[in-house]
């Protein structure tokens, strides 16, 4: 008789790539996570809290309910900000669980119609291909420069766009030539002065198109501090957006490409909190994959956020005075995801003349969450509004280390702010160094 191989199941989780039950086993339902959760804070409903979500995900495994549209709502409403992981006495990995269950949901309820089209277009056809992203960047640049933007705004075309897209459109940074194109022909970008270390720079996909200047600043700051910088050519999108939305297979495919692309590298430096967090999680994602576990682990352990890297390896404090009052926003995927809080503050305070005004609840999510602000505009808007109540009125700059936050906070500042400007921490550092060169 032929042996039939059965796909393993876990209660009503019946699709491949099952969630890891040991993760919810750690939750004892104490509720310490409630107040830290941005979606609980705006709805005060427990199905929208970390504890409620874990309970719901567990109840699918217990057979109490199924993967259906009603259960999908609170699971999709999670911003994946990881604040609950910081608050949790038992270190329950809520974020990873949410992504695992979204993977099941995506298989149970494949997207249909226009949502499928948009999803395919963005997650499959766009993000994995840097050249296409660059071309989109080119298009956006064309949109901005050609007068088309003015046309859109004046003709009323903008009136038929949903509110949140209008808001997003209005804060889109000016598109410039990505650093990967700028340094295309250079194998190594040499350190200024004595070379101390070599690093491989992960440019990030959106980061390099939308926030080119932050990437340029990062390279400048790295070389200024004695680092030879390489930009491995085969690197691709980190896959965070794919894992967030349940496209786990595509996410894994991208992860493998990155693991290969950086196999030769010693230290991998990243200036985007969301990507950095994702790259560090390759280890967990492949932990039971015999072929990739070791390579993923080696990769993840080489990844360093730029702020921590600079503080750990030693940096030269800028010498010129920059008289500015600013505040710092802890990106969720830096503070909660990677436990990095003090290093960015140290860098900021190393600049003479800078006055750092601490923001209350600086590590409360702004509602960006990768593409969350596009998928869940109502909740993202409510979360942003709450966040903006904490931004001090009397600062010029709001400093942070994540592109998603930069877009979202720019919208926040525009809507509720006092004329503050959003800036990446590396741009601030770079400007301080440049001032010193001029003087």
């Amino acid at each position, binding site marked *: 008789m032929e042996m039939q191989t059965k796909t393993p199941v876990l209660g009503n989780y019946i699709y491949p790539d099952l969630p890891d039950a040991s993760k919810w086993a750690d939750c004892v339902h104490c509720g*310490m996570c409630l107040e830290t959760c941005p979606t609980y804070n705006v709805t005060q409903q427990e199905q929208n809290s970390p504890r409620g979500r874990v309970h719901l995900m567990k109840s699918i495994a217990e057979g109490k309910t199924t993967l259906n549209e009603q259960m999908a709502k609170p699971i999709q409403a999670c911003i994946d900000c990881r604040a609950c992981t910081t608050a949790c006495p038992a270190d329950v990995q809520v974020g990873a669980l949410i992504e695992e269950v979204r993977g099941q949901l995506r298989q149970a309820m494949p997207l249909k119609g226009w949502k499928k089209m948009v999803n395919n277009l963005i997650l499959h056809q766009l993000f994995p291909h840097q050249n296409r992203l660059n071309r989109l960047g080119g298009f956006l640049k064309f949109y901005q420069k050609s007068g088309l933007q003015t046309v859109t705004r004046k003709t009323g075309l903008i009136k038929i766009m949903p509110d949140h897209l209008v808001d997003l459109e209005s804060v889109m940074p000016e598109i410039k030539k990505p650093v990967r194109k700028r340094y295309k022909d250079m194998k190594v970008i040499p350190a200024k002065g004595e070379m101390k270390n070599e690093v491989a720079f992960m440019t990030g996909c959106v980061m390099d198109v939308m926030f080119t200047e932050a990437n340029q600043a990062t390279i400048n700051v790295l070389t200024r501090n004695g680092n030879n910088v390489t930009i491995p050519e085969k690197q691709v999108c980190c896959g965070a957006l794919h894992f967030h939305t349940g496209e786990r297979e595509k996410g894994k495919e991208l992860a493998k490409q990155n693991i290969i692309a950086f196999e030769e590298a010693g230290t991998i430096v990243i200036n985007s909190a969301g990507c950095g967090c994702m790259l560090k999680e390759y280890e967990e994602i492949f932990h039971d994959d015999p072929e990739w576990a070791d390579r993923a682990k080696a990769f993840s352990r080489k990844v360093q956020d730029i702020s921590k890297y600079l503080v750990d390896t030693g940096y030269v404090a800028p010498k010129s005075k920059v008289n500015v009052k600013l505040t710092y926003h802890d990106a969720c995927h830096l503070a909660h995801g990677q436990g990095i809080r003090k290093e960015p503050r140290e860098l900021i305070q190393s600049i003479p003349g800078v006055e750092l005004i601490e923001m209350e609840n600086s590590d409360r999510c702004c509602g960006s969450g990768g593409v969350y602000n596009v998928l869940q505009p109502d909740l993202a808007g409510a979360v942003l509004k709450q966040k903006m109540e904490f931004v001090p009125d009397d600062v010029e700059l709001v400093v942070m280390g994540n592109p998603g936050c930069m877009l979202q906070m720019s919208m926040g500042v525009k809507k509720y702010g006092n004329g503050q400007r959003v800036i990446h921490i590396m741009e601030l550092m770079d400007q301080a160094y440049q001032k010193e060169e001029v003087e």
Partner: protein
Amino acid sequence: MNKSVLHTDDPHILCLAKLLNGFQPILFEKEDLIAYDCDGFTLHRHLPKAVVFPETTEEVAAVVKYCHTHQLPFLARGAGTGLSGGAIPLNGEVVISLARMRKLLEVDLENRRAVIQPGYVNLKLTNQIANKGYYYAPDPSSQYCCTIGGNVAENAGGAHCLKYGVTTNHILGLEVVLPNGEIVEFGTNGISDSPGYDLVGLFTGSEGTLGITTKIIVRILKNPEGKKTVLAYFDKVEDGSQAVSDIISAGIVPAALEMMDQTAIEGVENGGYPVGHPRDIEALLLIEVDGIEAGIDEQIEEILTVCRARNVREVKVAQTEAERKRWWDNRKTGFGAMGTISPDYLVQDGVIPRGKLPQVLSRIRKISQKYNLRIANVFHAGDGNLHPLVLFDANVPGESERALKAGSECLLACAELGGTITGEHGVGIEKREEMRYVFNDEEIIAQTNIRAVFNPDNLLNAGKLFPTPGKCIEVKQV
């Protein structure tokens, strides 16, 4: 979300929704209700009929009146962090969530009181008035997220209740919606000791069986001038317990005097807020002294002397506020951290006369061996309020039942040593039967008679606090 798109034919749900004005004011789909099928006590789970989110006292009263008229069972819920099951909808209740009634209505420094809505989170009050030099004293470990309304229902305690008293000592007045929907006020304008029966006292700790609190006047205190915290590691648990007695006998009243045993230390050190406690000690004490600056150092010196006389391995005073806070975060997340060493736990809440600490701890050890389940101890040693945490795995057949029996036996030990079955978590569902360890039938009937005055139809939070019908008095009464 628009109310007009409720996909249900249930007339009660449609009517309840009409009574409320907030955003998405009612949940009734099973997948949403699952989050409300239990609170911090997870051994019983029941789905509610619906969950409603009133934002004003009038909305609460309207919902209650509706339930009363249509004889629907109902109950109130705050943050759902209770540990005895007080907010579990045993009878498919309409759950009235007070989470959206979370305003601080007034701070009256002159009269040292604050007026809050029941969904206001405990720690927020202290955070809000700290810059003015004041705080709210009761500090249950769940204070980061539990609501003061829930604290009133359970008469919650906390680490610092040794010196300052539990919730009931800090409540000056209440606005309550009675089970027929009537709105009443207890306590005259927050003046303590008003004439007539102490109804504020009766309501505080009534576990949501007499009415629903919609406004609370609390006492606030001036921050103590000085504060110092000591951490002491003991190789032998007996030495640690003896040190507790010695400190109190020496005439010191610490603000807090906490103890954790070896298993508990394993949990917190694996958890989110490790301190670096040695794992091979049998007990640690966390002792805090506060009050007038002058004299604190002497008290600390005396505590250090007592600990050394009881063979302490290491004893130290917190050098910075950050260090002190870390020690407390570690202690206060003790229950949740059990998740790192066990899939499930059952926390008990017995009280004993302080002098009996060594005896009760040795009985708990024997109970642990008898049921072959690990029991961790994290507790308020200073006031003899024990928290044995029975560790088990609900997925192993029979373990839940064994855990319940072991927990019950711990309470019996407390009762037999002259103590009682709950210090601060309440009876709820969990300790209904154990009420018999401390009350006889007549005493229980006397109390259900009081309940009947306020809650004659027993629609509000039925099945809590007193032994279940079946074996029971409520049947005999009829």
